[in-house]
């Protein structure tokens, strides 16, 4: 069986800066994978390459066996990759429900179908009671979940979540982790960029560590925290204790 997502020797250069350096990894069809690393490690760039915000300078990206490197964002979305943005980007003049409906129009033109799918996605992330609210009334955790619901309503097979838990308090983050678990159980593959190692340990089954744009380790969370290079370069010696 082919892997859902496959990155082969992917690099991205911005002028003199090599933001992503020869990164290769594969994702299976389901479960939660975390992409971790210090600031500037190239996690978000990696995301943008997969989601088609810009093309890789070198290397190939395959989704379900199909090469997608260089495709525009909307085409990649339509193939089944949903994404959120690190800085939340709601459509300000639209309600919560309307925001979530936009993604559904990538597979239907029926407003009623889009509305149902959007409600379903909003229920899934716990925004069910706030569907008619205007964006300005949402709290930060709600906005993050709205981003997730927007991406979910495109009915993706792979969901890219860029720091959806950054800035959340521990109970809020725990609620998000529960949501992600439920989504993964439904057969969705989730790739997560995350800063907080504690959340990663809790949520992810598989962890990929980037450092200075390159992949330095990959494996189960237990393996990662005992990996000497990761501990030295990212977690710090204190983590071992």
């Amino acid at each position: 069986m082919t892997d859902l997502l496959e990155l082969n020797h992917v690099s991205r250069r911005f002028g003199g800066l090599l933001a992503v350096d020869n990164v290769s990894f594969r994702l299976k069809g389901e479960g939660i994978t975390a992409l971790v690393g210090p600031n500037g490690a190239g996690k978000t760039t990696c995301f943008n390459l997969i989601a088609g915000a810009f093309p890789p300078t070198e290397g190939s990206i395959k989704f379900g066996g199909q090469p997608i490197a260089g495709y525009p964002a909307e085409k990649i979305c339509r193939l089944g990759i949903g994404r959120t943005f690190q800085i939340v980007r709601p459509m300000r003049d639209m309600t919560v429900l309307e925001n979530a409906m936009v993604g559904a129009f990538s597979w239907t033109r029926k407003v009623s179908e889009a509305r149902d799918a959007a409600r379903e996605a909003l229920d899934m992330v716990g925004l069910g009671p706030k569907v008619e609210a205007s964006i300005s009334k949402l709290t930060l955790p709600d906005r993050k979940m709205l981003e997730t619901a927007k991406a979910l309503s495109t009915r993706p097979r792979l969901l890219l979540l860029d720091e959806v838990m950054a800035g959340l308090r521990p109970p809020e983050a725990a609620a998000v982790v529960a949501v992600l678990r439920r989504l993964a159980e439904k057969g969705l593959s989730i790739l997560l960029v995350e800063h907080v190692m504690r959340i990663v340990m809790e949520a992810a089954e598989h962890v990929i560590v980037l450092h200075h744009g390159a992949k330095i380790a990959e494996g189960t969370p237990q393996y990662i925290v005992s990996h000497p290079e990761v501990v030295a370069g990212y977690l710090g010696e204190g983590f071992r204790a």
Partner: protein
Amino acid sequence: MQKKRDAFPDLRAVLGSLAAFAVLAALGSVLNPYLISLLTIVFLFTFIGQSWSMMLGLGGQLSIGHALFVGIGAYSIAVLNIRYGLSPWFGLVVGMILAAIFGASLAWLSFRFEVRGIYFALLTIAAAEFARIVFSGWEFVGAMQGLFFPAQSGSNSLWMLRGDARFYYFVALAAVFVGVSVTAVIRQSFLGYVWRAMRDDEDASRALGVRTFLHKILVVSVSGAWAAVGGGLLALVQGSVFPDSIMGMGISVDILVGPVVGGLGTAFGPLIGTLITLPLDHLASAIGNKLGIPGLNNVVYGLALIAAVWLLPDGIWPALMNSVKSLTRLRWFGNLQMQQVKK
């Protein structure tokens, strides 16, 4: 804040707007000739303004050269009718098709090379001015001397779209009605959602699968075709077409004032806005002439616009709807309270 500002969720809204149009239609048979001709022009600019407002208010694409499409529509009708004696209906269709093609080409060229936002707006000005200059030197379409429709004789004819002032009042009113309905329908359809998403954040909407390149071309060509119909009707009402008056920058600016004041992208905004701004312009220039102060209309007009945009940045129509909504909400809240007391 602006949510559902003119969505047509219930029968009441539909009935309300039908009633408003019934009143305007009834006025058509009682008003004096001056008001009839003034309102006819108001309606035509409303209709053209609706096309412009859809493009910016829903699609997020600013045009300051809508006179291009108005001119294409006007000349299509004038040439086919005056030179070949064809019914203006043919001219309307030909004008729509030509404007859609020109609009799509302009949009394609622009967006293909990532010309966005204000730079696209500059390109629309350039296109309109280019067309004006071409038409000014083109003998076949009358060049600077323009084209004149034959003088009206005989009874009103819907087929030839010729008639008296009252006839045009009703034609223009029907156009506005169609414009309001089309705007409302588009807003409620998937296009409305996708276009508003694209307007609010182009890159984020692309990540949600919106083919923005396609939709930007679509909104420009639909808006252009729509404006061409308005331009054709405007030519018929004025009885003549000249490059400077139908394709000039003045037209492009006159088009956008009503919708901005009334409420961008809404179904009724352009009508409310134009109903206020255009008569105000006429009134100010009449007073200016009487007092012997030429240009007073521009000063008054300008000040009124600044005031409107300052006080009601979203436009008159959304502000109106919000206050109505808060009134009904209060009443509903009151009912709820009473029921709870009864319990």
